[in-house]
């Protein structure tokens, strides 16, 4: 990483990444690119790779990209930090938050 160029670019918009792709599973079929109603993604210029998240801050969290993904495990939904739900184990009282 340290050998790479450092670019002068604006701040990265939030959420940083509403969806996380596993490039070992994703086949780059771009079904999510076509399904997303607001064009959060663009196809990756390299065929076979996960799409590129371009308009992350426009994501309205409908989840259709992940729901309709034909490759199980290729795409995981990733709410921004202030949106991650919390729950409690009723018996033990142990508290959890979605990772």
């Amino acid at each position, binding site marked *: 990483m340290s050998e790479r160029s450092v670019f002068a670019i604006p701040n990265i918009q939030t959420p940083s990444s509403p969806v996380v792709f596993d490039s070992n599973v994703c086949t780059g079929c771009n079904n999510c690119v076509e399904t997303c109603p607001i064009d959060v993604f663009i196809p990756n210029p390299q065929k076979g790779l996960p799409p590129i998240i371009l308009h992350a801050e426009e994501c*309205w969290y*409908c989840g259709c990209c992940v729901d309709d993904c034909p490759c199980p495990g290729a795409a995981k939904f990733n709410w921004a930090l202030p949106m991650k739900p919390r729950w409690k184990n009723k018996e033990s009282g142990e508290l959890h938050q979605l990772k």
Partner: protein
Amino acid sequence: MATWHEYLRSEGHPPAWPYPVRFEQEQVIDTDVLVIGGGIAGCWAAISAARLGVRVALVEKGDVVRSGSGGPGCDHWCNAPANPLSRVDPDEWAQHMADTPYTNGIGIQIQCREDYDTLLEMEQMGGKIRDTDDEYVGAEGRDDETKLMISPRYGTRHSYLPDPDMGKPGFNPPEKRNNVVIRVWGNTFKPILKDECKRLGVQVFDRIMGTSLLNEGGVQGARVVGATGLNSRTGEFMVFRSKAVIVSTSGGGSMWLMSMEHGGYSNMQSRANSGDGTAMAWKAGAALTMMERTGGISIATGLKHKWYTGAGDASYENVPIVDANGRRLPYPIQGWEDAGAMLAAPEVEQKIREGIMKGEYELPFYGDFPAMAEVERRATWDLMLAEESTTRVFVNTMKQGGFDINRDQLMAYKFIEGQSLPQWRDPGYGGGLVVDWNLRTTVEGLYAAGTTMFAPEDHSYAAATGRYAGRKAAVFVKEVGECQVNRDQIEVEKNRIFAPTKRDSGIEWKELHNGLARVMQYYVSEFKTERLLKMGLEELERLEAEAVPQLFAHDPHKLMRSIEDLSMIEYAKIIIHASLARKASSVPLGFNRIDYPEVDPADWNKFLTLKLENGRIQTGELPQGFWGDMKQQYEAHNKDYTGVYKPKN
């Protein structure tokens, strides 16, 4: 590597725009019926028109497969009084719904008569509407013969508020319930609707934003004979020539709110809900009504949670709300015990707040799934939530994250987050196009369905009115001749659309959206006066004169967002004009004129209409119930209606 910045780090340059850029190039399409907006209403309109043998084109800003508010799913098929388990008469139920002031008696009558037929057609196409896999045997509301599953909603009356008889012995027994709301597997619906459009030969144009309507001779108010559009990936300009147009877009969206970041988190609905159809119909000369009606925003402000949380919200049927010690709160649970009540009476809200202060109820609160009967728990989580819109991905991600409804309680934020503020408003409360019994607007050739109409309802309403509008538009186009579009009108629109592409810098769409939101917050808040409204109008006109000419867009997507801003500014101006025209306050309209404090005086109990004529605003009025006798009018206009579609084969 999946984000643009990772790509930049890896490749040393940003990704090139992945689609061919064709700003200002034109494509011309000829059709009979053009449908603008491919959500639930638009798909049904296209399908029903195509089934009558006319040529249909369907234009959608996203991709029809999942676009629109009903794209991800639908869990409640509401107000289906014609279903076989219903205990109410469809015409009586419709009349009862329309007795509420400022409703749409035409749309309601269509919904009550035809939305069960619409649901059966959905099933014909492959949509799941019954528990055919016997997953929920034993669940309350499940009919073992039809395998339809009735929801507790509207069990005793058509309201989210508790029935005063709640808790009394014999309250809401199964044999006396209305049974007007059906639980459905709505996640299956939208892709099926797209497939059916294609099967019927509908020309589907995805990623095309409708931008304007074309009038015969280019004259405002003359017959609508087509529309223009913008491809949000290529920037190509589309000209549609058609004998009729059905507008089935969303209403206005986030006019009062915009976060610079988390844009989609800070809005209840998609940013795509920008009132384009309303704005274009307005400019084409169609009359609008109820545009002064706005409401407070309860969730999804960026400062409040986005999805339904824990309990006490739509879809969380029957989930008890408990405090941190497991003590049950007296909040209604939209369940069998309260006949579907979802909102607490003010005294109950107060009791809970006082209980929090005294330590009687300890925060945080939870939705207590484990306390529910097993089958009811699954019905709520795996059917209601997993089939409803944006909560499907919530259910699936929570499951993957380790949440287990049999063991865990989901945290609810309802009483932690504050109440809605005066300056947070939402326009999606009923403003829309005036329609007649053919769902035709006040302009010949222009029809409306779903949310674009005044006082719309929900998913099944969108489906039923879309299906109806498609049928009526198809009849119209079979009777009329061709029309010519006006080249001057097209050129004016083309200049408007592509102006932001001529600039390299200036004001970007997000800043303009924020500028609009600030004007609405300061001058069109809960508190309205002539002075404030006129100041708001002046500021919007200044935005148009000074900021809009600085709009810049470097790619087709940002150009689409820029044009959406222009739709929202137009929509906002109409809201202000309508607010100025109503010189009285009104509870059902959520309308508080401080300078006209009298609430719902008899002489203002009417619909105000606004339309453009030669560029000038004309106001008018319509009496409550202007649609006449609903049953008689419906039957007079639908003598040939035979119910569920029978394919030819």
